[in-house]
């Protein structure tokens, strides 16, 4: 199904959880913060939230900055 991740359309397996998506992209859940349809999803809940078609996901991390 189609979702939007970090501003770009992506095709992912239907019904996947956020945790599964992170694993798909080989992202360490402890190093990433997930915003799902504008709502932050805390780490413990990442496995409980299933993605729907058209969902918007933002994955952010700490980078160098002043």
């Amino acid at each position: 199904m189609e979702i939007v991740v970090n501003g770009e359309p992506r095709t992912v397996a239907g019904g996947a959880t956020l945790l599964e998506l992170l694993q798909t992209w080989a992202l360490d859940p402890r190093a990433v913060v997930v915003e799902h349809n504008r709502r932050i999803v805390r780490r413990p809940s990442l496995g409980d939230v299933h993605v729907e078609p058209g969902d918007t996901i933002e994955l952010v991390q700490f980078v160098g900055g002043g």
Partner: protein
Amino acid sequence: MDTPFAVGGRTFRSRLMIGTGKYRDNETMVRAIEATGADVVTVAVRRVDLDRTADGSILKHLDPKRFFLLANTAGCYTADEAVRYARLAREAGFNDFVKLEVIGDQETLLPDVAGLLEAARTLVTEGFKVLAYTNEDLITALRLEEAGCAAVMPLASPIGSGLGLLNPMSVRTIKRRLQVPVIVDAGVGTASDACVTMEQGVDGILMNTAVAAARDPVQMGHAMRLAVEAGRFAYLAGRMPKREVAVPSSPTEGMLD
């Protein structure tokens, strides 16, 4: 010899805070930051690059057990945006401190004080320890303190300009009138800028470009460490009065005939 440097209930060893942006490479960044002796480093919140071309998380290079990660809201132009970034930053799970930036103009990167106050009030009610990047205006600084900010961070000069402390009197006045820590943020270009800034009596300095963009960032990091301490101790020691006439250092008696 000096009172401890405490912000938002946390005590830090160094009065010098360092940004982690714009270094030529990560190894230089780490060595330069170590040279500064800073225990607080600022970081930005940005999207993960799923295609792995970009550099990735700063955590690969800086040990969060060793450094206190102070997330900023750099690049935010509205209160809502800044609040959103602050919440994401806190979710990273390190602390509830945020260096709040609400920028009003792309060319000067000067703060939008209205948006800044709005975001500060929101974040304080959500339990954040807000360190607010602001301009040299005393009135705004007082309002930020009233809003419950943990520290007020007036600029020395525009971000990345390296022009040094353009308005010492304003910074001195802000320090004199506020109870919360005053940490000068942005504009320091070289060691003497850091030294003269600390001599105004402020509690600390945050800098990034002055170290990252020096020819030798590691050596400049060391220079900044010394300069901040020098300025702090000179402030505490109390400087000699200035005089327009000369005064001899050697005795005027006991001269030969």
